[in-house]
């Protein structure tokens, strides 16, 4: 038994020595390989501060450092040929983000690691603001977005949860609130108020204040409105101008609609023909103008802000200016003089009144002649070359009056 125990112990010791020696040789072998240790303790740096990575090699070899950062990769050499101390170049040391690096020996990579560069909190904060859309409409439904990108002086976005003060002023309202930045930005929606006008905005991070930004608040959609007419007299003289004037057009919150809003006036006469005129608003009122008719008529007028609002229907009547006019045939009936055309006070009608004459032969209309009056008169000449001798019928129309002459003989 005793012998046996001794044997076992010997055997055990033997194996132990063997394993230790094997372990030793492997360890020794491992030390033959090139390896490196990072001496620099920090892993997090503030942007803009010098970053130095110092390595310790077990066997001195020529090294270089591969670095990979936010904007691309570079390879740098040690500060001096005989050291393994690397200064990260300034352009990379001032950019936020993770920098991965690989220490390269002559043939293999010796060490891999990464450091983190964070935005610099000690430098002056820079603000970039983006406001959009630049114009919105009143009423509290539309909004504009105020986006602030706070950066450090090396153009790195500040870390998330940076406090950003934003404020805006509108009429006598002044509001301020504090936002926490997230995903590089701090942002808020600024909703419009009931009134139109201009919202001024600003933002502030620590000591840095932004410049002033403005957003125009335009009135909302117009509400229905009234129209009235304005004319010099009620005669259908085809000469004077009738004006249609809207009431002051406002949105639902009582804001006068923006200048230049287009109002369309649609006029329906007794025959159902549609005429139209338009005007754009100034201070909420639009004026549409149209010539009086040249014959007795009744107009129904309605105005629209197309697609948004409409007015009441206005009815106005025009009265006839004359009951009859004189027609004189001369020169073998080849010269026809119409007039003098007189207006409502027996004054000569202003120049430009349209007189139309239809010429018929054998109940066939062969010509229509149109002329405008001058000094109350219109003269038609039927020349021989065009109108051979024979019987003609004439129909003459002016200012809503029509006269017929049958069997006029042209020599």
């Amino acid at each position: 038994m005793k012998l046996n125990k001794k044997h076992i112990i010997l055997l055990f010791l033997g194996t132990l020595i063997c394993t230790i020696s094997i372990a030793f040789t492997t360890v020794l072998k491992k030390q033959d390989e090139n390896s490196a240790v990072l001496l620099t303790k920090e892993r997090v740096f503030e942007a803009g501060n010098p970053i130095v990575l110092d390595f310790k090699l077990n066997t001195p070899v020529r090294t270089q450092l591969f670095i990979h950062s936010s904007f691309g990769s570079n390879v740098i050499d040690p500060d001096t040929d005989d050291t393994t101390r690397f200064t990260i170049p300034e352009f990379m040391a001032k950019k936020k983000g993770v920098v991965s690096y690989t220490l390269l020996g002559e043939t293999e990579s010796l060490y891999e690691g990464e450091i983190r560069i964070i935005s610099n909190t000690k430098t002056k904060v820079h603000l970039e603001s983006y406001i959009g859309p630049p114009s919105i409409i009143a009423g509290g439904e539309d909004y504009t977005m105020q986006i602030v990108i706070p950066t450090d002086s090396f153009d790195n976005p500040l870390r998330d949860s940076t406090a950003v003060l934003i404020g805006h002023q509108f009429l006598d309202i002044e509001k301020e609130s504090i936002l926490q930045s997230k995903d590089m930005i701090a942002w808020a929606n600024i909703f419009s108020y009931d009134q139109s006008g201009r919202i001024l905005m600003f933002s502030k991070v620590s000591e840095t204040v932004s410049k002033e930004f403005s957003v125009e608040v335009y009135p909302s959609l117009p509400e229905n409105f009234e129209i009235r007419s304005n004319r010099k007299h009620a005669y259908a003289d085809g000469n004077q101008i009738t004006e249609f004037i809207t009431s002051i057009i406002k949105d639902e919150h009582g804001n006068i609609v923006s200048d230049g809003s287009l109002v369309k006036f649609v006029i329906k006469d007794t025959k159902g023909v549609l005429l139209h005129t338009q005007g754009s608003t100034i201070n909420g009122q639009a004026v549409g103008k149209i010539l009086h008719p040249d014959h007795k008529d009744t107009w129904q007028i309605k105005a629209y802000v197309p697609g948004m609002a409409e007015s009441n229907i206005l009815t106005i009547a025009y009265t006839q200016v004359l009951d009859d006019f004189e027609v004189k045939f001369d020169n073998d009936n080849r010269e026809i003089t119409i007039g003098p055309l007189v207006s409502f006070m027996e004054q000569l009608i202003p120049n430009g009144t349209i007189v139309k004459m239809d010429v018929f032969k054998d109940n066939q209309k062969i010509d229509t002649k149109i002329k405008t009056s001058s000094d109350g008169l219109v003269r038609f000449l039927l020349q021989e070359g065009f109108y051979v001798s024979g019987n003609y019928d004439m129909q003459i129309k002016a200012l809503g009056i029509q006269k017929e002459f049958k069997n006029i003989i042209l020599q």
Partner: protein
Amino acid sequence: MMGWNRNIYRSFIIISFVGVIILLLFGIGQTLSYLTTGADRSSMLHLALHKERVYLPKLKWKDTINPGRPIEKQTLQDIEQDYLNAWYIRNAAYQTNTPKGIEDYYTKSARKHIFASLVSNKEKNIAIHGTTTTHNIALDFYSADGQLAVITDTGVKEYQRVYRDHELVLETKLQSDYQVLLMLEDGFWRIRHMVKDKNHTSDPVTQTNRSIKVKENKIFVEDKEYQIKGINYYPQKTPWDMFGDDFDMNVIAADFDIIKNTGLNTIRIFIPYKAFGKAKVKTEKLEKLKQVLDKAETKNLKVIVTLFDFYGDYSVLDWTLTHRHAEQIVSAFTDHNAILAWDIKNEPNLDFDTRGKENVLAWLKEMTHQIKQFDPNHLITIGWSDTISAGLLQNEVDLISFHYYLDIDAFSDAYTIMNTEIKKPIVLQEFGLSSNRGFWSPFGPSEKEQANYYKQFQEIIKQNNIHYLSWTLYDFDEVPSTVVGKLPWRKHKQKHFGFIDRDGNKKPAFEYINK
């Protein structure tokens, strides 16, 4: 004499006058056309910019939900394209250290960081050949006026090869997260801020249950050991253009019958990169490939599909296009039972000299990873042209394939050396002898010698239990110049490797196609 001289002077004066006038008019024309360029309003706004997609890494939108406002599909596409272009332009800039195009995709304050970096690299003569292969984008923010967006791109796989004084210093694969702020300027979504956030170690490849497995140096199909006895196949009338306009499924089906009846169990076919549509694979080509594979399945033949035939640009910036090519083909047949293996490229080692060995190997290595992602079910191999190259990338592939056209007596030794070094199934993927005795080769092998060659080879194969595919079923009438060049004797040789001659008669070698 005097008269002649005068005429010569006259014509000289007239010709020079005409010449001067032509030059003058040309000059005025050029000046005018120069003055009118750049005045085009559409070019000013970059609206009608012809943007051909040259960079197609795998990109996935993880989500577009953001607190700002819902994003339109069109804007999403614009951001995606401009963001990828920004990467492409940056990769190209780092390769040549020239900042061409950077100003289109980076804002004024962002681009100066890249410029500084490029200057530093240029001073030290460093060139970085890089690309990204994967992007997973989530939209963090999109502003109300549609002018500003913040995205997070996670798991960006970056491959970079670093050269210093034209010497390769480092090859690295990184996987990082980025947060990027983009702004719409002049019709471009430009990068304003870019912050690298995290490094990952690469994720493991997902394994699925595949019916085809490799255990040590044996291939198993549905748990039965599989011995490849096969042949490289092109239809007789359409060699190197199997899926072209003259594609005829009946001809192929008849050929499959011939192959099956000889007792062979595997064929190898080729997918030409350009003819299949490069990065945008043509559906009609995929349809033809599917017909061939379906037919092979019904005839009980396994298929080794060789991709990227006639592809020659291995440059890093071209990677993503080839990845999309592989993705569209491979993922269409992930579950196809006829496929035994994807052969990534035929004889890529022949491009080592012209394209650079590290270029070719890096491309192949990445491609094996890509294909494993798209199709974990089938095996992967590379068709090396000799026994020496066969050991390359042996950890990346499932089968080791090599071609052998050298002296038959030297084969056994070469094979034994290779077999001791490699612990994976080895496939003799191409071998054969051209019976090209004739005008171009008066002392070339006759059909009888060809038969003898196969007889001998089959004995060696039997002794060593080698997986094999011979070259090829038919003699061909025409061989395209892209295959062996323009020289007639080379073409002539390539025409006579078949077991069956041009008229459809079995050559003496046919007896030894399988034994």
